């Protein structure tokens, strides 16, 4: 009997130990941070959520430190949220919980979602601030449009904006007799085909060389490598005179003939053998290993690739189109949350205005390969030197004047996923081979099917 009681006591002891642990953690957690509102030196803390890790995050941190030491009222406190998709979920959750940060980096679709209910917008309309700031009209036109929503309300300012760029191996191009990058998609296709047929990689010399006349068993250097990304397809579509959606963004137009023509460029790359599809970053890796002559990637990728490229390379704007000279802007903006009080709003505005000043936006661009946001920044001597001397310094910036945007509907993220999977399906079918005469019809059918599904997504958000 006594032993039984002792055992029961032991059981209860284990329970008590666990609950004691839980209570300790609870009280540790509830202690909170008494310095949340103010810094040790009495500055008002402005909480900024972003998703910029690595080298880009380091540049951001150094700029934030500079801002914080430049004045005595506010302190921008950065909180890193890992990835864009996680940041997006967290922003939505924090809005629902009523515990938002003061400012956050976000895509246009999230901005649309958080401002769709008139009178209950979770983000501040920045128009009253902009009235007293001459910087807004100095933003590049596409960036002004990108920040302006229905009824002319400005809900964001540009933060990290980029364009796709064409990276090319100068050595390979000179082997096939070219000294400049291609200016059109047809030219890119023609040079890629030439490279594919004439250039091989010599493992002993560790460089591309011309194929020998007799049977050469060395691996050929590819012409063009790509990962499936709707971004480039959309650019080609606009360049060919097509459109992604109707003006109201309630219906996609990817099932048009001009869409099929645009996608056929990628299909031809595979079927004619001058291009190949890769997964993830593999096209970047293949370019770094000199296995391919051309890739198209975000201008910012150069930041990660530059220290891996031990051969002469060039960076140019994406090739031009037949009907329109246009490229598509990518990247996020910064927004101010509502309900954060007047003083914090003032501090948050002060920071995002500072970040978009000509000097700071120029430095942000020069250190990251994002594009600067202000026209005035291009006149700065250091910016002119950067554009003149740094490889790729001009490639993104040149596209600012021809920049356009993807649709900003909150459903666009889902639409992009649908479009990407349709492209993947099409390319996979082409990779497996098949009757050439039926390929166009197959592309048409898949795009049409994707368009129907995208329209359903758009309809959900336009209710």
């Amino acid at each position, binding site marked *: 009997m006594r032993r039984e009681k002792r055992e029961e006591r032991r059981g209860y002891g284990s329970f008590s130990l666990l609950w004691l*642990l839980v209570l300790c953690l609870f009280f540790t957690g509830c202690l909170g941070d008494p310095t949340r509102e103010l810094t040790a030196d009495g500055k008002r803390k402005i909480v900024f959520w972003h998703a910029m890790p690595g080298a880009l995050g380091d540049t951001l941190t150094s700029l934030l430190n500079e801002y914080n030491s430049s004045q005595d009222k506010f302190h921008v406190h950065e909180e890193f949220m*890992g990835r864009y998709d996680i940041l997006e979920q967290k922003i939505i*959750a924090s809005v629902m919980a009523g515990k938002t940060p003061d400012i956050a980096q976000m895509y246009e679709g999230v901005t649309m979602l958080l401002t769709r209910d008139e009178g209950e917008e979770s983000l501040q309309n920045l128009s009253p601030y902009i009235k007293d700031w001459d910087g807004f009209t100095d933003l590049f036109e596409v960036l002004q449009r990108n920040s302006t929503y229905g009824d002319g309300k400005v809900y964001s300012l540009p933060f990290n904006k980029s364009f796709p760029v064409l990276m090319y191996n100068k050595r390979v191009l000179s082997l096939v007799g070219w000294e400049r990058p291609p200016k059109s998609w047809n030219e890119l296709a023609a040079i890629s085909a030439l490279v594919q047929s004439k250039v091989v990689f010599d493992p002993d010399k560790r460089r591309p060389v011309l194929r020998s006349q007799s049977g050469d068993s060395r691996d050929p250097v590819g012409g063009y490598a790509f990962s499936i990304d709707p971004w480039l397809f959309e650019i080609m579509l606009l360049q060919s005179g097509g459109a992604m959606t109707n003006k109201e963004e309630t219906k996609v137009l990817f099932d048009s003939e001009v869409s099929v023509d645009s996608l056929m460029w990628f299909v031809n790359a595979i079927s004619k053998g001058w291009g190949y599809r890769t997964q993830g970053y593999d096209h970047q890796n293949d370019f770094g290993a000199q296995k391919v002559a051309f890739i198209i990637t975000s201008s910012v990728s150069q930041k990660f690739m530059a220290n891996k490229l031990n051969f002469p390379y060039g960076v140019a704007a994406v090739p031009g189109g037949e009907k329109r000279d246009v490229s598509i802007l990518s990247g996020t903006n910064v927004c101010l949350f509502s309900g954060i009080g007047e003083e914090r709003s003032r501090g948050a505005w002060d920071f995002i205005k500072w970040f978009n000043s000509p000097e700071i936006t120029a430095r942000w661009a020069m250190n990251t390969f994002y594009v600067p946001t202000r026209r005035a920044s291009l006149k700065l001597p250091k910016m002119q030197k950067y554009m003149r001397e740094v490889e790729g310094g001009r490639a993104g910036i040149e596209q600012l004047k021809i920049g356009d945007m993807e649709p900003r509907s909150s459903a666009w993220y889902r639409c992009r996923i649908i479009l990407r999977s349709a492209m993947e399906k099409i390319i996979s079918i082409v990779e497996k081979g098949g009757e050439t005469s039926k390929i166009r019809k197959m592309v048409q059918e898949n795009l049409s099917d994707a368009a129907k599904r995208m329209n359903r997504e758009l309809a959900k958000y336009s209710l």
Partner: protein
Amino acid sequence: MIQSHAKQKLFHKSMVHFGLITGGILMCFPFFWMILTSLKSPSEVLDVNHWFPREKTYLSAQAGSDPVQVEILEEGVKVRVREILSGKIHQVEPDQIQKKTFLWSNYATAWNKVKPSFSRYFVNSAVIAIVTTFGQVLTSILAAYAFVFFQFPFRNLLFIVFLATMMVPQEMILIPNYLILSELGWIDTYMALIIPWLAGVFGIFMLRQFFMQLPMELFDAAMIDGCSKFGFLFRILIPLSIPPILTISIFTFLGSWNSLLWPLIVTNSQHMRTIQVGISYFSQAEGTEWELLMAASTFCILPLIIFYLFAQRYFVQGEAASGLKG
């Protein structure tokens, strides 16, 4: 006849060993590649024609900058070198030249690159993983014990409801869970990282299946002999269930150690973040710093490997007993 039988046996044994060794090499290859990559320079990472790092020449670091990789053009009283990336040519003193093959410095760079520090992330991950594992094992034992050895109304229905919660993807309950934690004031605390994971249906399910294999008479006999219910649990049931308990411990520990989404959602400040957040620092939408990512991955999996080496015997037994594998 006997000799031929022995030869046959030897042949079979050799084949089994050959299969196991091949499997072992295949399983170890990703780790081997990870370690090799962690010791390469950024440009070597992309050179798939050469598996092993080669000797590289560097120009000694100037204050505040990294060493620059160069190739030697001409040696003499002064050495003429060309920077590999920029192509710039310099005349330098011979003692400014360094030769390196394995870049162990990648480990130091990766370790020091994240803020506040990897050591803080290690401590956070260790505390969270250990407490979560302890809690989940305890709650799983108690729940499984009740489901198998006690009769109560709706027992099976309740168990099915428990199981059904396994079918709900984490992404679906992320925002509701965030709202609950926010209401409790637990965001950015250890509470948010630990309490929701103190009970897990997988552990309950696995232990219930194991307990069901034990004869009910064992429980009845213990009760007749005057053993209490807790006595049976602690003196008989748990000692008999060490392999599945260790299996649950390993699964829980691994799940907690590898968790990325949850810590990012429920914490804000860097000092509350975990090891996987540190690793994600080296990869983003526009590119990846492979050599640093691999270096960080190597030192982050070391504790798991050590933990596994200690518990592997029980882990294998647990798998065999439950029919489950990771």
